[in-house]
């Protein structure tokens, strides 16, 4: 399996806090990897490094062989990386549909002049169709015109995934996507992620506290603790790993 994502020796310090310390991780094309670990383990920081929100002090991130450190942050989307945020990051001033259209930003060309002169109508229509198709896929069509504030937290997480997909990613990073869902909704949500993974041939890394969710979804699990990778392997093995049990299971179960 060719590695789509290759992280090596990644170290990220914030002042005195070492959020990541020498993390190695390879994710193959088409894999669905679960990333677990207690609060403050560095999971979100790892995502921040993969999207150039953080500039790590040491180590490298290769995406399909290309060093991401060479790219300005806004170019990472163009390389096929999309993510959601731990706390939803929808734009409150845009409707649900416009949020998803904003996700497809990189597929548009229209500049200010073209748009102001009314020459961007065709492109707008295309972006809108993309957005509506995605919303329909998530069963969110009826909320297209609503402001995101009108939706419950769990639903905004779905909209954010739809927005990330609108960018047309190869690698999708989901940061605690099941947060805010009622326990009864979690299995259906896992099914949705599994279907997206299969149908869109995505590579997905998903951070989740919800251990049952991760175990049911991912065959491979990586565990971080205080910035160190303490386990990486098949779900069954990782679940029984004493270090992982000590770090996570006791707390989050």
């Amino acid at each position, binding site marked *: 399996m060719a590695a789509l994502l290759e992280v090596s020796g990644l170290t990220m310090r914030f002042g005195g806090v070492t959020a990541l310390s020498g993390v190695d991780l390879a994710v193959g094309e088409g894999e669905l990897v679960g990333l677990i670990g207690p609060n403050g383990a560095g999971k979100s920081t790892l995502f921040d490094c993969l*999207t150039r*929100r953080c500039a790590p002090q040491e180590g490298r991130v290769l995406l399909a062989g290309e060093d991401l450190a060479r790219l*300005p*942050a*806004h*170019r*990472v*989307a*163009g390389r096929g*990386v*999309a*993510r959601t*945020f731990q706390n939803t*990051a*929808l*734009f*409150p*001033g*845009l*409707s649900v549909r416009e949020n998803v*259209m*904003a*996700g497809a*930003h*990189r597929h548009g060309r*229209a*500049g*200010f002049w073209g*748009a*102001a*002169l*009314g020459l*961007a109508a065709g*492109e*707008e229509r295309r*972006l809108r169709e993309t957005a509506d198709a995605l919303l329909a896929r*998530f*069963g*969110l069509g009826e909320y297209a*015109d*609503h*402001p995101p*504030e*009108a*939706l*419950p937290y*769990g*639903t905004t997480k*779905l909209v954010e995934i739809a*927005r990330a997909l609108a*960018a047309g990613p190869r690698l999708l990073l989901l940061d605690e996507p099941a947060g805010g*869902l*009622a326990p*009864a*909704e979690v*299995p*259906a*949500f896992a*099914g*949705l992620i599994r279907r997206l993974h299969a149908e869109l041939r995505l590579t997905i890394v998903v951070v989740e506290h919800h251990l049952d969710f991760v175990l049911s979804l991912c065959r491979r699990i990586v565990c971080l603790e205080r910035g160190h990778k303490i386990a990486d392997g098949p779900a069954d093995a990782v679940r029984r790993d004493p270090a992982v049990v000590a770090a996570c299971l006791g707390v989050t179960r």
Partner: protein
Amino acid sequence: MTGVRGAALTGHRRPAVGLAAGDRRRTWPWRRAALAMTVVAAAGLPFVLPPYRLFQVTLVLVYAVALLGLDLVVGHSGQISLGHGAFFGVGAYVAAVMIGRLGLPYPVTLPAAALVTYGLGWAAGLPALRLRGLYLAVVTFSVAVVLPPLLKRFPEVTGGAMGMPVATPRGAGLDDDQWIYFLVLATAAVAVAGIRNLTRSRGGRALTAIRQHPAAAEVLGMQAASHLTRAFAWSAMYAGVAGALHTWTTGFVAPDTFTLSLSITLLAGAVIGGLATPAGPLLGALVVTAVPAAARELNPAAPGLVSGLLIVAVVYAAPTGLAGLLRRAAAAVAARLPAGRRA
């Protein structure tokens, strides 16, 4: 999937209309009828109003064009400009010099003012917007402070501290003030259409995204500095066009019209009218025209103070400005109407 959605429906809530800037929900009933009435009223106004009142209405439209542009920076981009009075002044002087000194026909002064202020907007915005926020405020503040003395330095061209009179446009078959009103009205209509198209497009979404969640915007591939700089250049261009219209309307330019105080009054108009909302610039223009005149009756030094106090009052009491208040009122009215009548 339906399981997720069905359960997620619980807890559905809707915030009140008019509380958030950029809320695009429709509130106004009878939209078509209201639009038709506005067009008729706008076309009939010059034939019923006395010249002095028509002059005031024309000025309101001129300021509305400037505020449409300023709103792109303050409302949509979430940045502060203290220099739009200066861009307005540059547009006014470009028109005045082209007409008064070079003897060029007035229609060419509009695109010329637009081009010059667009370029100036790029030049001022490019370095500042890489750093953003306070830096833009400082750079634009400097522009506003530098312009009046600069205009006074070259009296052969600008007329110096005394300013200079300029021939106003004349149209056949109409009084001058009526003709100017229609010129300004037509320009304002084009300006509104341009901003409307722009803010509803990819670029407009990017501005909102960058203002509300810069990290998420960047992850989606939006380059903040580039979008903000373009928005700033557009905004300066709108101010410049408004300045040229101001020269056409008043037939006079003087450096002390375009001081820092004008920049602050424009900023007050944008905030008080309502940010990132269609009615905001027009309502703000009413404030820009009416408040200084009313305040001057109290005391010649009062306009700045009154503008400042009004900004504070609005930010506390009605953060979405007059437009937000109107929308809340319209939503309350619409809620009492039978559903079928909301055209």
